[in-house]
């Protein structure tokens, strides 16, 4: 059966004019990418669109802005605000610390083994997130954690008496930095490697100081990758839930935890409000990316 129909198609293909024959061949052109696109549409794009549309519908399916307006209630605004603060703080600290480490190991004249060891470790630590990371920080900076106890016995510094709490904004930020820094290192090291030696030599020949070389050559070249990574780190922290949930339970009210509670038990007593929260998360991470693309096109103009 199949054989017959295939040969029929081949014959049909021969009889039609060349233009149409090409149109007939189009599906095979797409065959290689079809699984990818079907997968992406079904399991990435449609589910997201579904939530985004749901954010603008009420229970009867009518169009409304009520759900978006309902996001303005204080508890939800507070959740967004603390999420943004934690993500911003952890991505900025992670980005600058990661950049410093990357420059130190690539250009700092450190032995080669340090570079490879750091890169290997960064690969591991950037993926060491989620629940186990929370356990590690509880064991370090929790009330009975090693660092807490040592600081107290060695230096008489009781960090908990000074207002530190692992279940707080700074506790969570400090924990997130543990995967943010290595992620920055992993992504930015190739960019720093990409700085050609000749550029440094050319700058030196032209009489540039080290500071000028950095300001006028290095930073403009690294800038797009750096900015892109900061945004990646931001989104990374903004959507993360496992670490925060295992660390603080629900005592720190960040957006993903709020959404998690909403999905599990409709704590807001309004299903469509859940959609609106999800929509808000996508808008924030999406906006971050728009900024990134805007910055990148601006800086790429200078790279050409």
């Amino acid at each position, binding site marked *: 059966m199949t054989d017959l129909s295939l040969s029929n198609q081949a014959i049909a293909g021969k009889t039609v004019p060349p233009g149409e024959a090409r149109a007939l061949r189009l599906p095979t052109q797409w*065959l290689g*990418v079809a699984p990818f696109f079907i*997968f992406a549409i079904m399991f*990435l794009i449609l589910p997201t669109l579904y939530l985004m549309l749901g954010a603008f519908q009420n229970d009867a399916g009518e169009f409304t802005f009520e759900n978006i307006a309902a996001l303005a209630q204080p508890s939800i605004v507070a959740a967004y605000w603390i999420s943004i603060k934690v993500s911003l703080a952890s991505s900025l600290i992670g980005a600058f610390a990661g950049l410093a480490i990357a*420059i130190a190991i690539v250009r700092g004249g450190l032995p080669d083994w340090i570079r490879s060891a750091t890169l290997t470790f960064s690969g591991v630590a950037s*993926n060491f997130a989620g629940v186990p990371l929370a356990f590690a920080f*509880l064991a370090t900076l929790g009330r009975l954690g090693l660092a807490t106890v040592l600081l107290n016995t060695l230096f008489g510094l009781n960090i908990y008496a000074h207002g530190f709490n692992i279940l707080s904004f700074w506790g969570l930020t400090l924990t997130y930095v543990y995967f943010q820094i290595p992620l920055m290192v992993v992504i930015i090291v190739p960019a720093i490697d990409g700085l050609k030696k000749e550029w440094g030599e050319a700058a030196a020949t032209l009489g540039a100081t080290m500071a000028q070389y950095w300001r006028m050559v290095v930073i403009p070249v690294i800038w797009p990758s750096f900015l892109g990574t900061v945004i990646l780190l931001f989104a990374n922290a903004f959507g993360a839930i496992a670490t925060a949930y*295992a660390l603080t339970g629900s005592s720190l009210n960040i957006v993903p935890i709020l*959404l998690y509670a909403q999905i599990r038990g409709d704590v807001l007593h309004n299903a469509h409000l859940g959609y609106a929260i999800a929509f808000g998360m996508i808008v924030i991470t999406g906006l971050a990316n728009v900024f990134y693309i805007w910055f990148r096109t601006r800086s790429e103009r200078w790279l050409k």
Partner: protein
Amino acid sequence: MKAGRFWSWVVFALGAAYFFIPLIATVEFSMRMRRGVYSFDAYKVVLGDARFQATFGYSVLAAIFTIILGVLIVVPAAYWIRLRLPQLRPVVEFITLLPLVIPAIVIVFGYIRMYGSNSPLPFLATDTGTNALLVIGYATLALPYMYRAVDTGLRTIDVRTLTEAAQILGAGWGTIITRVILPNVLIAVLSGAFLTFAIVIGEFTMASLLNRPAFGPYLQNIGANRAYEPAALAIIAFAITWGCMSLIQILSRFAPKSANRPN
């Protein structure tokens, strides 16, 4: 330059302190279970726990299926784009970056609403369907890493020439992909696979919201109820991640000279 080196050491030392103190603290904490002496009791308790074995096994299986699904989706697409449809590259790159933009919790929330028992595609109506949906969800999470790994692998070989050479020698598409392209990007694919494994093995959000008996929710449960076992589990999880990354490094040494060697 001397001063530069000094500051490099300072930066490196600070970084090392930040990264090693939590690990040392966790090891120390995990060995405190028996009063007064250091012991491996917490590890014994954890490894002997039937739920640990069951959930860990479940997650390993989920990871393997995720890797297979990821390879089946990504390798043909990345190859085809290099060979025939370079104009689609920006679109595909954009899509593969989406999972980094859309949080996992949002993706799985969409699944729960779209593929519920009353939907046209009721994945969530059966256990098998839910397991499949979890693997699919994991494959979306791994998509950015898998695509980048495979694409980097493809970049280092001349896809067009290899394909044409194979075609001249009479190879069909199946032969070309399995015997010419795949061996050349195998190291890249395996790197992507181990990275996927590291991401999936302790994943919490999706498994928990889909109510799967996976390792991530088990970890969370132990964390909420026990004192010393979580520290032991954290060390075990770190060792697993380390193992995956080491395997990637070791593999890259076996990579063919033409592939994966940008220098």
